[in-house]
């Protein structure tokens, strides 16, 4: 019983379910989280178990979803707010950034906000420009909120549960294409949510990534290793704020070479902070220019061919890393 195979969304469901059953102050709120079960079925079955007072279907009012969650936390609850898709979270940026992230500081620590805001993001399948974006770069730059972006099923369970019981506001970013990913949850594991995870060890190239791109990197690695005849170490960041620079540093001290892969647009993308850290703190350790692979600087198009051309794929990752390796004497 201590290890169970399940889907990513089931792992999230399980984490919420257990948190709700162990603490009656845990509530969830969002559009269609109750009767409908959540648009990605993450909250399936919970309203039947915990009732409409704790599994709250909200109107389409994202500013209020987060704002209400903040108020609930002030009032003593532990709310988990779900935003249906990242793009709609923009409507709640004022509540996230001006309120959730700042009340504690402005009140000299008198206010504690145990709030989790969850949302899926990213390019799914032809959902077009208003349903395909990623906002980790914006949110990770906000002092006062933590940002987690979890790729593995096991970690999804542990990190969400831990986030729910954290006393800090945490934004928990998911990717729409991860929900049906299968994996094994080890219930006995103890996890530090502010640690990155080395998904694959290697000695020559460090590839840093997160969320769905980790899986795409893993798919690209065999071709890269074969063509360059080098071995890759793959780091799944897992926590975007704070950033676990220690893990990255150790790896880079071994490899001397770094590739950063993200799905979001290149310009101003989250990976630029990682690259910036390396160029500042590990400059003398680097043996080659950093390679950043990211989405193109364009709104996401509907047409499938264009959509795929706008983001990294296992193929494009393999190609670009190989080319970069070759032109840098690897």
């Amino acid at each position, binding site marked *: 019983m201590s290890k169970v195979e399940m889907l990513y969304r089931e792992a999230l469901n399980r984490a919420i379910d257990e948190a709700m059953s162990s603490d009656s102050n845990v509530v969830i709120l969002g*559009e*269609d989280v109750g*009767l*409908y079960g959540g*648009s990605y079925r993450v909250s399936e079955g919970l309203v039947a178990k915990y009732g409409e007072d704790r599994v709250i*279907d*909200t*109107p*389409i*009012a*994202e*500013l209020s979803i987060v704002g209400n969650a903040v108020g609930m936390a002030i009032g003593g609850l532990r709310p988990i707010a779900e935003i249906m898709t990242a*793009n*709609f979270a923009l*409507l709640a940026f004022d509540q996230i950034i001006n309120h959730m992230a700042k009340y504690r500081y402005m009140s000299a620590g008198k206010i504690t906000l145990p709030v989790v805001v969850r949302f899926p993001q990213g390019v799914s*399948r*032809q*959902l*077009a*420009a*208003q*349903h395909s974006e990623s906002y980790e770069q914006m949110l990770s730059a906000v002092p006062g909120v933590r940002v987690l972006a979890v790729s593995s099923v096991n970690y999804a369970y542990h990190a969400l549960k831990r986030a729910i019981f954290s006393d800090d506001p945490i934004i928990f970013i998911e990717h729409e294409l991860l929900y049906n990913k299968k994996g094994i949850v080890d219930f006995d594991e103890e996890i530090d949510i502010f640690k990155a995870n080395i998904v694959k060890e290697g000695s020559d190239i460090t590839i840093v990534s997160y969320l769905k791109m980790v899986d795409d990197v893993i798919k690209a690695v065999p071709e890269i290793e074969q063509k360059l005849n080098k071995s890759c170490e793959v780091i799944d960041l897992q926590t975007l704020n704070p950033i676990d620079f220690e893990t990255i540093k150790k790896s880079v001290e071994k490899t001397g070479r770094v590739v950063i892969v993200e799905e979001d647009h*290149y*310009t101003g993308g989250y990976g630029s902070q990682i690259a910036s850290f390396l160029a500042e703190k590990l400059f003398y350790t680097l043996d080659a220019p950093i390679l950043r692979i*990211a989405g*193109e*600087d*364009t*709104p996401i*198009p*509907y*047409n*499938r*061919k*264009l959509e795929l*051309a*706008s983001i990294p794929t296992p193929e494009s990752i393999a190609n670009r890393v190989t080319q970069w390796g070759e032109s840098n004497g690897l």
Partner: protein
Amino acid sequence: MDKREVEEIYYLMSLGRKFEYAAKEHYMSGEISGFLHLDIGQEAVSVGAMRAFEHGDVFTTYREHILAIAKGIEPKAVMAELFGKRSGVSQGRGGSMHLFEPALHFYGGDAIVGGHLPNAVGCAYARKFQKAQDGVMALFGDGATNGGAFFESLNIASAWKLPLLFLCENNRYAIGTEITRVAPFLEQSKKAEPYMPTIEVDGNDVIAVYEAVKEARSYIQKGHGPIFVEAFTYRWEGHSMSDAARYRSPEEVDIWKSKDPLKRVRKLLTQQYEMSEDEVDELDKKAQAVVDNAVEFATESEEPGVDELFDNIFVERVENVQG
């Protein structure tokens, strides 16, 4: 109302419904992807409103195929868009949710619930500023009436007396959430009462919708400021293709299917306008042919090329760093 207009209305509603069923079919077979929101059951609102507001600017949402067609966009350009083709009305960049044709004053296709309302207000400001004859119409669902953008728009349009017709398509649900669970009443026009006159209408009666919108249009054209029309209707299908609609009973759906807006106009045509069933069938056939042709056109059209990825982000293109 003269017979030709009613015929045209019936034809457009029939065309709309057949278009939607064709879209559904080609979604199931994979040529169409993404989110597809069908308007079946709500044709009376879409067609009635567009026919009564031919010249003005129209801002609407992601459930807009029939609106686009009734506003004059060619069905084949809409179908090709759903297929993601370059011949689509948005050249395959927008898909089902993003149909735009400024030449026809159609700004359909916003997929942020309520997000187009401030844009409609701004356009109404421009029209007033320009002393234009026609005003602006904004369509939205019952679910949009709980968001800040909606309220800000009511207030501003009213404070500034803008020529803006708010048209709420109340189909009782926002995805799986019944409106009365997240608002204190069913009739969303109540929310507009402090700001402007309101009209409630049976959204399954196309003639009633048409008349209400005509009346409302003439109100805004006279410079009295905004007005609010609420049409009560129902969607037969799920919210989008990925919705199994378990939140409502089959009985409820059946009751509404029995109020089929299309059958109602057919009856009107045969009983009041003395058309034969065969003559009405001819309209259906004509509609089917147009839809078939649209599918054929969409199927045969070319996809945009990957080299066009960066087209139309900006007017003024500046080389960027990536690649």
